């Protein structure tokens, strides 16, 4: 995979932040995810425009006492895990947010 890795939240998921923690529900699998403070920073920055490297450098290393190499390694493992669950998307190209699959209801 290219060094440049773009990350984007799946538009179908529901997410709420409570304090420093992000709570996410995937409607597709009815599965609940809870992210800690650092993971929440990445989640919030995953807009499909910023690369993971930029997020780590600008949002993680600037705030937390961690080396860029260690932070990027952990961040890659994290986003790949969420991508396996389909709630985050990865690409070596910028990602436009796809429309969610919504069913019209009253």
């Amino acid at each position, binding site marked *: 995979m290219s060094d440049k890795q773009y990350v984007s939240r799946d538009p*179908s998921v*529901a997410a*709420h932040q*409570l*304090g420093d*923690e992000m*709570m996410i*529900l995937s*409607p*597709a*699998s*009815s*599965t*609940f*995810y*809870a*992210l*800690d403070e*650092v*993971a929440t920073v*990445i989640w919030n920055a995953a807009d499909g425009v910023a690369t993971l490297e930029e997020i780590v450098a600008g949002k*993680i290393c600037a705030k*937390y006492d*961690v080396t860029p190499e*260690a*932070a990027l390694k*952990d*961040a890659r*493992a*994290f986003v790949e*895990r*969420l991508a396996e*669950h389909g709630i985050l998307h990865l690409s070596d190209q910028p990602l436009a947010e796809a429309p*969610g*699959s*919504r*069913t019209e*209801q*009253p």
Partner: protein
Amino acid sequence: MNLPGNPVADLACEPKGGIVQSRDESPRGAEGAPVSALSAREEMSGMKAAAPRSSMVVEIGGMAIRLRCGDPAFIDWLTSRYAGYVGRSDEASFDFEIELAPAGRESGNEDLSVSWDSGCWLMERGDFRAEWNPSSGRGRVQQAVNPYSLDSVLRIMHTLLLAPKGGFLVHASSAVRNGRAFLFSGVSGAGKTTIASLAPPDAHLLTDEISYVTREDGRYFAVGTPFFGELGRVGENLRAPIECVYLLAKGPENKIESIGGPDALRGLLGNVLFFARDTQSVKLVFDAAFEFVSRVPVRRLTFVPDERVWDWIA
């Protein structure tokens, strides 16, 4: 650096009824004569003065649903089943026609399906098939004569009606004490019925199985329901502001611990009833649960199953 992202909880789903009977594609009346919703309604309107009672209204959480059936004996049975929750016939906002299918054809525990199609909610399980048009307020259900199918249809309807308003149904017993409602939530065996059965005389039981949560002006209320569990007792038809939710666990001593953030939401979501699996419906339930735990304390109650636990609930 810790970056958790593993799934930690699945949501609750509807428990299947103890007696599951097959859906009959050609529903017939109690005497074996073919019955259709339309013909039954026309007959009732034409014979209103002389005919036995052909409908009743069940009102839960302020939502009144008229239930019609061509078999007066079944209406009488429903009136008895939902005693305490029978509303006036002119109050109903929704109208449901019940078509009774013959009993005795077991089909096994089929999965429940709730879907939205062409302006209607479709609900289907082995023992019933129902549709409901929210715009017209009308619906119909085909079911065998048993106490479980209609309970399930009503629970589904109420979850669909509550969700846009920020309310929900949750696997929990609940009781009102000193004007405040307490919910005791947990999976089967956690102690919902046990703690309800231990309630002192000054506690008013709302349900020992399925609690009904409404949101009004940003405040949350618990209301009584006729949905009961092992206790076999219909809850009192009362309404009170929710003081807190206890997530139940049995243990060697009574203990209350505060729970916050993800643990509270995870614990609640694991017990909230939701049926429709489309994105919008699931989001509504998630939003409702999130808002709830943001405003109502959630605590873990470990308890010894005797009446002393109620010394801690006040």
